[in-house]
């Protein structure tokens, strides 16, 4: 029973970080109907950003996250203007392939520079014991920061002018344009925020697990599953989806081999797409 509790708690904490990564994907989908296939490599870049700042310059990983976030935002805006803007109204295949080619470029350059050997950010805050459960403090901090960032995003989307613009463009791009919203700039900003969330999530994951330049791919697939669980385009749903996935990953290995986890995850993913493509939490389709 205690073992189960630890697994659930572990999974929940990890779920917040998964949710943060998925939020980046789902925000971009919600605003511009683009499935960002460069999501995984961008998560990897976040991991390497924290790694380089920490091992190269000795900056605290959590401070390094700020620089990584700024980098992610700018990178996203550049990617938007280079690869997405021209095909934003084209059929889905174009944006899928455009973002995939960005993924190829990042992975190709990343592998050439960093090779595919595993790295880790050697920074531990010790662990925390609650009854019989032992939890690394890194995970608690990562979960807390993910929650904080989610709350920040929520307030930003509700309370600020540009946040409201983003929601307006997500709702109806033409109408927003008619109301004087500079839609291209808002789309670029949304893409930037989406990639920023991905890099920050990557940076947080780097403080928990070892990684390679290709590690982002796993989290990209998890983000798809989470995004679909929570309803693509629904940031709060993404957090809940992340928690569900985290708990599943915690519980399943307690009663069957851990290698079955992805089988269940992806079957769930396809089933939800078939039955409820708007997600478990029923985001309205704009």
């Amino acid at each position, binding site marked *: 029973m205690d073992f189960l509790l630890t697994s659930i708690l572990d999974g929940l904490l990890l779920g917040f970080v998964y949710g943060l990564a998925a939020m980046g994907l789902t925000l971009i989908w919600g605003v511009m109907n683009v499935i960002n296939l460069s999501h995984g490599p961008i998560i990897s870049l976040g991991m390497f950003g924290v790694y380089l700042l920490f091992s190269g310059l000795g900056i605290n990983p959590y401070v390094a996250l700020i620089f990584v976030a700024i980098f992610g935002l700018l990178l996203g805006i550049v990617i938007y203007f280079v690869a997405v803007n021209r095909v934003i109204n084209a*059929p889905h295949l174009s944006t*899928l392939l455009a973002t995939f*080619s960005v993924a*190829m*470029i990042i*992975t*190709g350059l990343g592998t050439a520079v960093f090779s595919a050997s595993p790295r880790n950010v050697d920074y531990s805050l010790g662990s925390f014991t609650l009854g019989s459960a032992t939890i690394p403090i890194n995970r608690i901090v990562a979960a807390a920061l993910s929650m904080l960032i989610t709350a920040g995003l929520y307030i930003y989307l509700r309370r600020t002018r540009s946040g409201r613009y983003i929601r307006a463009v997500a709702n109806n791009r033409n109408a927003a344009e008619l109301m004087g919203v500079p839609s291209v700039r808002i789309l670029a900003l949304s893409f930037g925020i989406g990639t920023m969330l991905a890099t920050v999530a990557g940076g947080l994951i780097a403080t928990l697990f070892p990684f390679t330049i290709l590690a982002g791919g796993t989290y990209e697939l998890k983000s*798809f599953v989470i995004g679909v669980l929570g309803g693509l385009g629904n940031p709060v749903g993404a957090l809940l989806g992340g928690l569900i996935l985290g708990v599943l990953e915690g519980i399943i290995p307690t009663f069957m081999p851990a290698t079955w986890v992805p089988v269940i995850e*992806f079957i769930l993913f396809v089933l939800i*797409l078939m039955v409820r493509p708007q997600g478990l939490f029923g985001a309205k389709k704009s």
Partner: protein
Amino acid sequence: MSSPNDTQLAATDTKTGLSAVLAQNAGSFVGLILPVAIILALTIWPTITGKDITRESIFTIMLSIALASSLNILLGYTGYVSFGHVVFFGLGGYVGFYLMAVQGWSLWLAMPMGGLAAGLLAFLLGKAILRLRGGYFALATIGVNEAMRAFINNFKPFGGPVGMTLNFQVYKDYGGAARALSLAFYILAALTLLIVIISYLVRTSKFGLGLLAIREDEDAAEVMGVVAPSAKTWAYVLSAILPGIIGVLFFFKNGSIEPVPAFRLNFSIEMIVMVMLGGQGTVLGPIIGGVGYQSLRGFLLTSPLFKNIQLAVAGALLLVIVLFVPAGLVGWLRNRFPALRRVLQ
């Protein structure tokens, strides 16, 4: 109110319409010449040069052409983006390999079974996920591929994560390993020719017109009498069978099968890139795309300048094509030189 004049006009219209259709049909036979000529040239090339290494590189090109042409039936004609098409290659390969390695079947029987397994999966999936449109369908195909890979990874009869290997003795039945390699090449050539002809027949048939209509506007197509759900499902099945058969052949030649190479998502995406490069929705496009992509890849991998960043260079190239030449090479040529349309189908 119709005056005699109108009727006459309508009659001339029908006539020109009819002759146009006839002319187009005659022209489309011309369209088959170039694809078949390319496949035949590739087939006899190794015999001319007499080098085994040439045959191996042409095997890769042929494989690309066959898979890209299969995918094109769904992607190019019907407009549904299957990101996980490799699942049919992998599943077919696994079923056929299991029959050969464990049950001792011959390659000739295992290949159709691989195709059958892939077709059956496509049929069931078609019923389930082809209702999804656009991005949702693409995501679902990725999910199906990943679920299948994760499942095979745990499936003991198929060897789990280590996969299966063929006993070397098996090749004796085909005249030794060297003969088996050469045999695999000619089987692949025949299959490639077959899929190209199927692709052409689909494109010029009423069924194919229905698919093209679905691609342009699914709702309008249904209003015009295209039974979209069944047309889409059959297009999906048709595009899955050949990859299933080829999977068996590929892993037979390979001698072993494992979950990761069998269900490599990037391989799916490479197929899409080839279709896009050559021109989606055309018979010739995937052929040009397959030859072009593999030649480019070969060049990048061996060039000292690009060797380390070949993936990035290929990505940049893909981006340029997606942004500026979305119709692919054949599509671009067709638009640029309308006179060539008969030849470039």
